[in-house]
């Protein structure tokens, strides 16, 4: 089964075609088909997993490819490669996709283009699965673009809203800039090695087939693509805006799966990054992103925006882990983060539905009474995010701290700050939304707990958020068929058995406590006076944070003034210089020459005779000049 894992991608692909073609005419607009599809790939995943584990480490990675195209010496194969990283990604994608599909049935009820939503969701799942299954960078790029497209379509689902359209556009174009880098990087790899196959490339690089500088440049381009997709600084601007899309989409695409594609890519090519000496760049970018978005998350008031910046920040954590050379740590955080962040987003979705489309924290508060299940699961998710022992987030963050330990105290200090901030804004989010008194009685009076279609996925994900961390343990792993636990399973090349480092656990817990209780104390019971302290004390700083350090404004300025300005210039040049002067001008000149010339034709015989006589003289002169 493992060598036929492509079926996983094919099933939702076919579902997309069927739903896009028939969609509206199917019973219930085909949502059952979507859930059925998600369930079946969830089931199929276990078939793949079982087969994969049965084959055993000697048979990994499981390969299957066909010749795709050939022009002269240029040959291209397409296929899949299943190795532990892929398996992890498959687990994340199929699980979250199932939950989101189920949740969406409740969330999207009565929304416009219900069928289309589910259809595109299947397209996304198909592309995402293809992305992680691809054995070569080209297919990966294809899938990479297709997930971008699905993301574009889903963000822009409510296209009657101008802001949704703008957000979709922004997401597509921003990631596209990164994709340009990725494509360049991919082609540069081909240029150097003559293949797109990932394993071959790694093999070549380890043999030293690519020169240092060249490899570094290539990896920078690849990294550009990863940064774009994973919303790393300075490409992060699209992700918060992407919250314009339906909330389940945010859970699936903008928290659990698509945005981690960059992390996946870097983890996949980690040996190459290492060989290129590019890991430090990854580390620094990750760290900056983690800190930056942690800060910005403080000043956000929209639940989803907070979660979005939190996602950016956590993606930064993953990059930090990768940058430190610990692929397993990064992948592990990816794994756990997928569950609790999906949980949080779906929880936010549940809040939005329960309160009839209110998501400003300032209008909420005290929801736990009205929505106990949502609140409970949200709490679990928050604690996992903040890193409470022994929830999933604790273990993965612990791994990251462990990884950074080797990079020097300075980095360790910064990442600890980031961890505190995580706990802090998470506490703020939970406290202001669910605890205290309702800020708006009107909203509170209408609030209802959502139905089981939506709460069941929350419960499941909450369960996962609790237990997912234990996969790190040897014994836990053995029970599921992969001895050595997550770390060893994921990265064969970098065996790294997990040991609980109690010192680190203590520190980690301390960070959690500082952050969480700090945040809770600060925002408890809607004590807004304290939360506005910063705004009063340092209004400029506060404004800077709230305006996201002016990144969006800067980009807007660059686009409006520089890019579009240049475009106006080019258009003007094209009209005036090339067309009117160059093309029309030469036509006019020709006509004008005729106009001048025609005045020689005076209509008078003597003038005509003069022309003849002069002609004879001129011809004679020409002849004498040329002939002699």
């Amino acid at each position, binding site marked *: 089964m493992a060598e036929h894992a492509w079926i996983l991608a094919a099933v939702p692909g076919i579902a997309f075609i069927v739903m896009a073609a028939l969609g509206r005419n199917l019973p219930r607009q085909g949502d059952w088909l979507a859930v059925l599809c998600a369930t079946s790939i969830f089931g199929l995943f276990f078939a793949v997993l079982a087969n994969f584990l049965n084959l055993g480490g000697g048979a990994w990675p499981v390969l299957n490819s066909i010749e795709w195209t050939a*022009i002269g010496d*240029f040959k291209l194969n397409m296929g899949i490669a299943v190795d532990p990283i892929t398996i992890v990604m498959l687990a994340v994608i199929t699980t979250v996709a199932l939950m989101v599909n189920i949740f969406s049935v409740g969330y999207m009820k009565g929304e416009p283009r219900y069928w289309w939503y589910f259809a595109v969701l299947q397209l996304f799942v198909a592309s995402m699965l293809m992305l992680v299954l691809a054995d070569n960078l080209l297919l990966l790029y294809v899938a990479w*673009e297709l997930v971008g*497209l699905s993301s574009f379509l889903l963000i822009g689902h409510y296209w009657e809203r101008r802001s949704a359209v*703008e957000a979709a*556009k922004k997401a597509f174009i921003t990631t596209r800039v990164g994709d340009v880098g990725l494509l360049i990087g991919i*082609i540069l790899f081909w240029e150097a090695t003559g293949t797109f196959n990932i394993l071959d490339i790694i093999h070549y690089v380890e043999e030293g087939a690519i020169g240092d500088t060249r490899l570094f440049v290539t990896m920078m381009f690849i990294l550009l693509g990863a940064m774009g997709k994973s919303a790393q600084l300075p490409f992060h601007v699209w992700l918060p805006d992407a919250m314009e899309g339906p909330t389940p989409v945010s859970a699936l695409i903008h928290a659990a799966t698509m945005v981690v594609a960059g992390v996946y890519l870097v983890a996949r090519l980690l040996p190459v990054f290492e060989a290129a000496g590019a890991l430090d760049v990854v580390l620094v970018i990750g760290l900056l992103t983690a800190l930056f978005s942690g800060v910005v998350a403080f000043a956000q008031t929209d639940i989803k925006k907070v979660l979005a910046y939190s996602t950016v920040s956590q993606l930064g954590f993953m990059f930090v882990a990768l940058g430190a050379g610990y692929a397993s740590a990064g992948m592990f955080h990816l794994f756990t983060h997928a569950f609790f962040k999906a949980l949080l987003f779906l929880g936010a979705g549940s809040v939005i539905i329960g309160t009839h489309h209110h998501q400003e924290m300032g209008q909420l508060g005290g929801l736990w009474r009205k929505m106990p299940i949502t609140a409970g699961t949200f709490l679990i998710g928050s604690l996992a995010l903040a890193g409470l022992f022994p929830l999933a987030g604790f273990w993965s963050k612990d791994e990251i701290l462990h990884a950074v330990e080797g990079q020097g105290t300075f980095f360790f200090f910064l990442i600890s700050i980031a961890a505190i901030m995580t706990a802090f804004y998470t506490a703020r989010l939970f406290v202001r939304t669910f605890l205290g008194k309702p800020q708006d009685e009107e909203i509170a009076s209408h609030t209802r707990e959502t139905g089981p279609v939506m709460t069941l996925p929350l419960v499941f994900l909450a369960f996962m958020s609790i237990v997912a961390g234990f996969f790190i343990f040897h014994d836990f792993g053995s029970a599921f068929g992969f001895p050595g636990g997550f770390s060893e399973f994921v990265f064969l090349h970098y065996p790294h058995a997990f040991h609980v480092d109690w010192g680190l656990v203590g520190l980690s817990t301390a960070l959690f406590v500082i952050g969480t209780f700090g945040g809770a104390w600060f925002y408890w019971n809607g004590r807004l006076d304290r939360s506005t302290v910063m705004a009063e004390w340092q209004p400029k700083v506060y404004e800077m944070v709230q305006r996201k350090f002016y990144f969006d404004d800067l980009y807007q300025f660059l686009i409006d003034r520089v890019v579009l300005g240049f*475009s106006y210039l080019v258009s003007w040049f*094209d009209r005036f210089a090339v067309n009117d002067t*160059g093309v029309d001008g030469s036509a006019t000149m020709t006509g004008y020459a005729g106009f001048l010339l025609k005045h020689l034709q005076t209509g008078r015989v003597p003038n005509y005779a003069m022309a003849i006589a002069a002609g004879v003289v001129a011809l004679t002169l020409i002849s004498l000049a040329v002939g002699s």
Partner: protein
Amino acid sequence: MDTAQGYVLVTALALPLLAAGVLLFVPGSQKMMARYFSAVIGAILLGLSVYVFLAYQAGGDVLQMQLRWAWIENVGFLGENGISLHLGVDGISALLTLLTGVVAFAGTLIAWKLEYRAKDFFILFWILIAGVYGTFFALDLFFFFFFYELAVVPLYMLIGIWGSTRKEYGAMKLTLMLVGGSVGIWIGIFAVVHEAGLGTFDLPTLWEAGQNGLISAETQKIIFPFFAVGCGVLAGLWPLHTWSPDGHMSAPTSVSMVHAGVLMKLGAFGIIRLGIQILPEGAEFWMPALLVLGTIGALYGAIAALTQRDFKLISGYSSVSHMGYVLIGLATLHEVGVSGAALQMFSHGVMTALVFLLIGALYDQAHTRDLSDFGGVAKVMPLWVIAYVVAGLANVGLPGLSGFTAEFHIFVGAFRTYPVFGGLAILAAAIAAAYMLRMFGVVFFGPLNPRWKDLKDLSPLETISAALLILSMLAMGLWWSPFTDRLANTVTSLPGVIS
């Protein structure tokens, strides 16, 4: 078998001419008759084109389905086979034949709703199509030029009579620029035939002459620019592209479709047929220049398209940009790059034909093409928007659609030979995303402008045409090998093309 297949080519060539001849005698008032008749002809041509493409054997000889009818020989300066109706296809022309069939059929259906002098329109239309087929099939320099001109000239009347916005200016400029370009080709032909000194216009003979040193390297370097610029005008070579925005703005829908879809490809095709194949050394010498111009065109078109307010201007500039890719692909003289150029010709052909179809469908109802007049059109014209989005995504090179297949090959070729230009070309693709999405955002989405609440979606005929074109895009995007396999032998056999 080969000759028998050659008759397929003759049929595809003669059929549109016959159609024009027959229509000449149909009374102008019999519009429906002209339409049905043209639709049938279009369908047959589509069938023949598909046949030519499929029957072209991927692993076989480069030139297939050859047929030679003596025409003018052993007279004056002409020797044996002086001028002969020598037809045949190679991989590139087989692909472009398919493109012609698809676009011509779609164009015929779109011209259905034309009321004013419908019969005359179809006459000229079929003459144009015959010219296109002829150029792709011709293996004789004389007939190549014959059909090349034949394809260009009817445009004057097609645009001048049935056009819109500043139609006379657009028509005159377009015709003059294109014919002006063909002057370059003409001069090149004189020089080549004279230099080869074989008294023949037969292209394979001349190719051999060019490759065997009968035409000296120095001479080749002098002649090549004439071919390159001459064909380049039609291919939208910067800075001789300005007929494209104006011409497209003026042209009626189906003419725009055929023109941007197929005709611009004649130019690039000419650069291969005449430039690269007859003058390999000249080509090698001049290709860097062509590369620079192509890259400028690709970027320039994309950047200029960013701020246009007229649908057709966006497409016009985007065509300049995409034809820039074609030139980049050719200029790499690398087997993958040149294949990419051929693929891009097809891809851009169907994509741009679809775009013009859709613009026409909107303009016919709205009578404006200003982007800012619209908004939220997706509400009333969902099919239209879906088709446009597909076309737009092909335009920005989204994988799964033909644009990516083509551009990927071009980029690969460019990186092997001129990495910096390859990078710039990819950048242009990113800009393409910006202008396309900008248009999507402004026109399709957002709140519906109540002025447009009565807009009608695509008619059945338009839907069929659009579906056909989308199908072509998907076919190339999803399954490369039928296309690349047919190109492989041809491309590797081109002189001077490296691997």
